[in-house]
């Protein structure tokens, strides 16, 4: 195994396991597996109250959008946690390639985000008696994975900002809220004001949520290929911006000796 591959896979997994030293099942289950169920139920009942859309609309929208919690928080923890432990300088002074270093740490986050969204989707369907066609399960699973990938790209930007911002949890909560409004998880895109639905086109989840809803309505994967491609592009764009920001803030941190000060 080459050094880069080892940093990518072993470093990524080790870093994620380190995250779990505080993310025990006693925190993981209530926060990441039970939490989204109640978000789904809340919006499904508001939807019923407003006579807006069916339960399926809210189950799919909120289950996929909830991947934002693990993706955004875990990525900011990638920097914040290292700084808290006093190991950030040691990592950034190492000669390890930054692409395997940062992207390797993103990979388990993508998988975890997709897992959280998939569990929420399955339990949401069970509780609200939403039936998805069997043929749509595998394509929706792929869309969920891509949505988690896309949001982890945004998470990389969030991680970079953690190099500058001490209370990143506050920013992460705000980003989560914006994604909840803009991405069409609860309000149909065509009911949003024009500037909001236009902005949503450049945000993670927007295309994935539409694609998953169409798949649930019987469309095939090839029918939603454009939406899936757009979601991948959004994720790549955020990922590259996040990487560039990380490198820039790292260089600034070295120059002004501010790595531990943010």
């Amino acid at each position, binding site marked *: 195994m080459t050094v880069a591959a080892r940093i990518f896979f072993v470093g990524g997994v080790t870093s994620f396991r380190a995250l779990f030293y505080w993310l025990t099942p006693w925190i993981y289950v209530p926060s990441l597996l039970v939490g989204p169920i*109640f978000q789904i139920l809340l919006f499904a009942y508001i939807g019923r109250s*407003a*006579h807006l859309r069916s339960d399926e609309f809210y189950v799919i929208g909120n289950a996929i959008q909830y991947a934002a919690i693990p993706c955004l928080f875990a990525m900011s923890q990638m920097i914040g946690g290292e700084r808290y432990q006093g190991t950030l300088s040691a990592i950034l002074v190492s000669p390890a390639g930054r692409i395997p270093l940062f992207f390797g740490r993103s990979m388990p986050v993508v998988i975890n985000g997709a897992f959280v969204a998939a569990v929420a989707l399955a339990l949401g369907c069970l509780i609200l008696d939403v039936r998805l066609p069997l043929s749509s399960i595998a394509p929706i699973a792929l869309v969920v994975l891509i949505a988690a990938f896309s949001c982890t790209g945004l998470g990389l930007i969030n991680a970079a900002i953690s190099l500058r911002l001490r209370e990143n949890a506050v920013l992460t909560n705000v980003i989560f809220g*914006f994604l909840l*409004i803009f991405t069409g998880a609860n*309000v149909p895109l065509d009911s949003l004001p024009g500037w909001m639905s236009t902005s949503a086109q450049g945000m993670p989840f927007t295309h994935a949520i539409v694609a998953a809803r169409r798949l649930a309505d019987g469309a095939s994967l090839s029918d939603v290929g454009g939406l899936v491609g757009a979601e991948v592009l959004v994720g790549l764009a955020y990922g590259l911006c996040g990487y560039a920001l990380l490198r820039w803030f790292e260089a600034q941190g070295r120059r002004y000796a501010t790595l531990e000060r943010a």
Partner: protein
Amino acid sequence: MRIARLLYMGWAFHLKSLTLSGFFIIVSVISPVIFASIAYLMFRAGARPGSLLFVAIGAGMMGIWSATLFGSGGAIQWQRWQGTLEYCIAVPPAFIWVILPLTIATATIGLYSLTSTLVWGWLFFDVPFQLAHPAWFVVALPAAVLALGLLGLVLASTFVLYRHANALSNLLEYPVWLVTGLLTGLALLPGWTRPISWALAPTWGVKALRESALGGDPAFPVAMSIALGIVYLVIGHYCLRYFEKLARERATLAIA
């Protein structure tokens, strides 16, 4: 008189302290505004547009509950982490008089939520702010805040027994929003949720505020808020005494 002064000074101190916390500003201002916006947009787009003032008050109460839940749920744990829990217990006044101002302050912080959702709705969604019973609204608001603050006392004294109180707080935020009908109204929820909602202060607090603002009879929900507050005070008192006794017997006051 001394107790009243202690309560007032503690409340004012914690109110100022919490106002400086970015996390509490998020919980009490930005988060309710986000949820209120989603609800406004959903009701506007839906086939049965509800009263936007109904939504604004409900979203404001969501913020009061969140601030109470996160602030009071972790109140004792925070004192422990900061190393001040021993002092809070060792001082001459009973522990309840030291912790009560903090839990009421966390609920008071929630008033930022109500203000922000009403102002936000008025500015961007043309939500009218005309009160049917202004005098009752002035009574209902402190009654609701006080009842939630006293519920916070119960949370503070029970959550401390659970090591991962933050996760418990995360878990309880949405269910209480849902079961107390803050944005949906109780009629849509399954019948078995009713008794749960009756035991929770946000149900009566939001009902009192809505009936004051939109018309109705706010007297009963205000009375229920006060009655529930007294029940919470009694429960909180005994729970705190139990916690203090256990901590002293086992010498675990400083052990998280």
